[in-house]
């Protein structure tokens, strides 16, 4: 079942990126998608039924909107630090605990953190994430965990776990 999901997703991706609906193109796409799902199919989507729950799609949209807003904020933040004559930076690597369980959800969280203001995920070991932060705002682990993971963690939990 999950092989079929990967196949359908890669097929959609192929059609979007080539954007031609001739028979030869669709056949080539099907062959490429079949190869992709045969090789990578077992790594993704352990429970395909999740795709069919509208609640998850709703939280995905909420997550997407928050993500885009945070991402734009991140850019202005970094641009401000770069252009400021005194360069207000206070960098360091902090340890943050995550409550997410599945690999897919953790990958999403790590990617989201990388795109949000001043933070890059360095490593994930067990349920601890190591995050490089360009301006550490607080010394208290409870406070900065909340700042780094933000609302992403709860949204991702709602649609990906």
């Amino acid at each position, binding site marked *: 079942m999950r092989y079929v999901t990967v196949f359908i997703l890669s097929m959609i*991706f192929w059609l*979007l*990126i080539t*954007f*031609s609906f001739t028979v030869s193109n669709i056949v080539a796409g099907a062959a490429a998608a079949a190869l992709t799902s045969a090789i990578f199919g077992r790594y993704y989507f352990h429970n395909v039924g999740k795709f069919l729950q509208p609640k998850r799609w709703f939280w995905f949209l909420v997550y997407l909107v928050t993500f885009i807003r945070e*991402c*734009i904020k*991140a*850019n202005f933040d*970094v*641009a401000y*630090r*770069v*252009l400021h004559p005194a*360069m207000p*930076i*206070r*960098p*360091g*690597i*902090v*340890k943050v605990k995550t409550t997410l369980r599945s690999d897919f959800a953790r990958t999403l969280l*790590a*990617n989201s953190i*990388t*795109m949000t203001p*001043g933070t*890059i*995920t*360095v*490593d994930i*070991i067990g349920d601890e994430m*190591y995050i*490089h932060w*360009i301006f*550490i705002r607080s010394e208290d682990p409870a406070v900065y965990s909340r700042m780094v993971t933000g609302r992403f963690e709860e949204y991702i939990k709602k649609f990906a776990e």
Partner: protein
Amino acid sequence: MAALILISVGVLFNLFGCLGLLRLPDMYNRLQAATKCVTLGCCSILLGVMFHYGLGSAGFRALVAIPVLFFTATVAAHALVRGAYHFGTKMDKRSVKDDYSEIVK
């Protein structure tokens, strides 16, 4: 018009990213500028391309390139920053905290 504004904003953010590469003190901070500004800059340019060509063949490809860029940029940043740390690249002396040093000896 919208296309022109988006592309200009994108080029501007790419410029900030490059300035960050030059001005920030160490590898880790430079990577922050390189991933964030340059990714959003490129996304903005791609959106501008989409507006310019409309939702045809080129427009759709530009749109599909955005999520691809997001995933590859973040994964590349993650790999680079982790690789740099394990290689032993020093953090700037202004750094205030390093929890990762307990793991990497």
